[in-house]
């Protein structure tokens, strides 16, 4: 009977099946690939096309201007200032967030009592939207009613009170502090996960050898976190180069471009100055900068990986 059914199977059906298994990858990938093409790849390419236009974004007024926008960008001090601010942000993210995060991770790892509760509370800032955090700290920094100045005044430190977000010398630093506040918990949990894989026997062996907790931290735990640290640096650098939210919400890039980032400058150029073409030039330049730096960072971190 089985033989009969096999013989009876039409060749056409077998062919259809072979075809369907050959087409299967295409069918499975199609939805994702189409979405990525439409909403990621096409905009990326289109951004470069738009960078060659002078256009306010409305109607049929677009005019092809060749590389004019790119020449303008090369001489645009605000763009280079904002790129510099991006790099400052990256630098301080790495220098401030990661050390604090490592210390907090070790604290949580060591503190047996209530460490779970602390971890839950520490994580809260990460769950808030940037708008909530931005508006919250705008009020915290408020020169008249904000708690920062109020507390300084309460201690009699009237000279220390500042217009934290309004002073061009302070604005960037003030915002970076908030960026750190929001992102430290992220790196903390990252390092906590790294510490979780620290072999317990190693800790016990070191104690038997008479090593103090501080020695264990510097000589054993820190080296153990090397891989996690590398990942954290990559994430912090790439994240900083494309940063937008908190700065836009808290200062809009001001005052006088003091806290301008590439992304906020791009945004304002397009949606406030209605220079859609030039804004796209900034966006495209940003893409080039981020891709280059990301590629270089990956390279460097790979090399570290192979060396160590």
């Amino acid at each position, binding site marked *: 009977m089985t*033989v009969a059914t*096999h013989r009876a199977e039409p060749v056409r059906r077998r062919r259809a099946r072979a075809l369907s298994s050959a087409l299967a990858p295409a069918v499975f990938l199609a939805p994702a690939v189409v979405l990525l093409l439409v909403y990621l790849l096409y905009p990326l390419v289109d951004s470069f096309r738009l960078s060659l236009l002078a256009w306010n974004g409305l109607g049929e007024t677009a005019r092809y201007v060749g590389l004019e926008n790119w020449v303008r960008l090369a001489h645009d001090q605000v763009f280079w200032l904002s790129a510099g601010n991006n790099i400052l942000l990256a630098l301080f993210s790495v220098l401030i967030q990661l050390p604090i995060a490592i210390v907090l991770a070790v604290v949580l790892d060591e503190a047996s009592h209530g460490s779970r509760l602390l971890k839950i509370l520490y994580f809260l800032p990460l769950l808030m939207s940037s708008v909530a955090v931005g508006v919250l700290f705008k009020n915290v920094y408020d020169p008249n009613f904000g708690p920062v100045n109020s507390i300084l005044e309460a201690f009699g430190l009237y000279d220390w009170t500042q217009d934290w977000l309004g002073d061009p010398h302070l604005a960037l630093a003030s915002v970076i502090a908030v960026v750190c506040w929001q992102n430290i918990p992220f790196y903390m949990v990252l390092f906590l996960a790294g510490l979780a894989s620290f072999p317990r026997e190693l800790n016990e062996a070191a104690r038997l050898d008479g090593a103090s907790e501080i020695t264990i931290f510097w000589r054993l735990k820190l080296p153990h976190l090397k891989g996690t640290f590398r990942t954290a640096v990559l994430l912090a650098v790439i994240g900083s180069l494309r940063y937008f939210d908190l700065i836009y919400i808290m200062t809009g890039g001001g005052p006088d471009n003091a806290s301008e980032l590439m992304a906020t400058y791009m945004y304002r150029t397009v949606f406030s100055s209605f220079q859609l073409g030039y804004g796209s030039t900034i966006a495209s330049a940003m893409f080039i900068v981020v891709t280059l730096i990301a590629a270089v960072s990956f390279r460097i971190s790979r090399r570290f990986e192979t060396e160590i």
Partner: protein
Amino acid sequence: MTSITLAGVTKKFGNQPVLAGIDLSIADGEFCVFLGPSGCGKSTLLRMIAGIETITAGELQIGGQTMNDVPPAERRVAMVFQNYALYPHMSVFENMAFGLRQAKTPKAEIDQRVREAARILQIEPLLERLPRQLSGGQRQRVAIGRAIVRKPDVFLFDEPLSNLDAALRVHMRTEIANLHRDFSQASVIYVTHDQTEAMALADKIVLLRAGADILTKGSIAQIGAPLELYHRPKNLFVAGFLGSPTMNFLPATVEAAKTDGVTVRLESGEALSVAVDGAGLAKGARVTLGIRPEHLEMAAEAVAGQTITHTVEAVENFGEYSYLYLQSPMPAPFIAKVSGDAVGMAGRAVAFQPLAHSCHLFDEAGEALPHLASA
């Protein structure tokens, strides 16, 4: 009707040949074991029959029909995997019913078949459980149950017992043997690296070899009934693979070669006669003498001829039998397995008297000389 035939089957991964020149036929209802060292391709061969590995060259027939390009589900085979491969997110019942559902079997029949299989395997109370809630042995039963419900023409087992502990392994081995008796119309192909399993279960053993030799000699070292492979190994590979402890090999030269027996001289100067057909052997030819440890019987006092004398280096006593480790010029251990206790034997020279018809002789190419028909 469900005989399986392989003709000239070959398998390559890239350019790397893993199986070559497989010619094999398995009869209706036969229990066939693929045995061999790791890397010999025995699992690959099974997977090719199942249809989850493509056949590079050659033809596979099941029930007289070419199956090379037939999808696995239509080959009327069922497979039990080494790690059971139970679907972790389905209950035991769903695991067994899954294949039937794909085949659009009526619900009532699915239910009846699954319960029947569960009854046979004594896993009825487990039907609603998930695989992770089962012990290794229970998972094994479910995997077998999944095969049974499909009422296949061929059962394929891929090292099904290797994940179980020793005691359970022996128990499940018996159950698989019983199962084959209950489903005697179906053929079984069973892959294992464990010769005990093979000897215990098989109607027919296919012993496969690994390595570069497969290109010149083909993958199949010998096909035959278990005792045939044990008593009449065709070559050095088969002789050395089957049996535990493994067969002792001694270099020798031919003293006299006749069709009714051959006399060889060992390096120690001792001469032994072997009951093999010596046609084609020249005097002085180099040969290898093979004697299984269990065939090395201690000689009675003052018997002359057909003896070899060796000094005992060490003794292992197991109560029922003992291993004597003998001094020999060869690097491999030279072992005699004697019954009963062997106390105080170490250091003594002992004479052994192997029977002529239980000795094996291999020519320089490693092929066995044919044994004389036993009188």
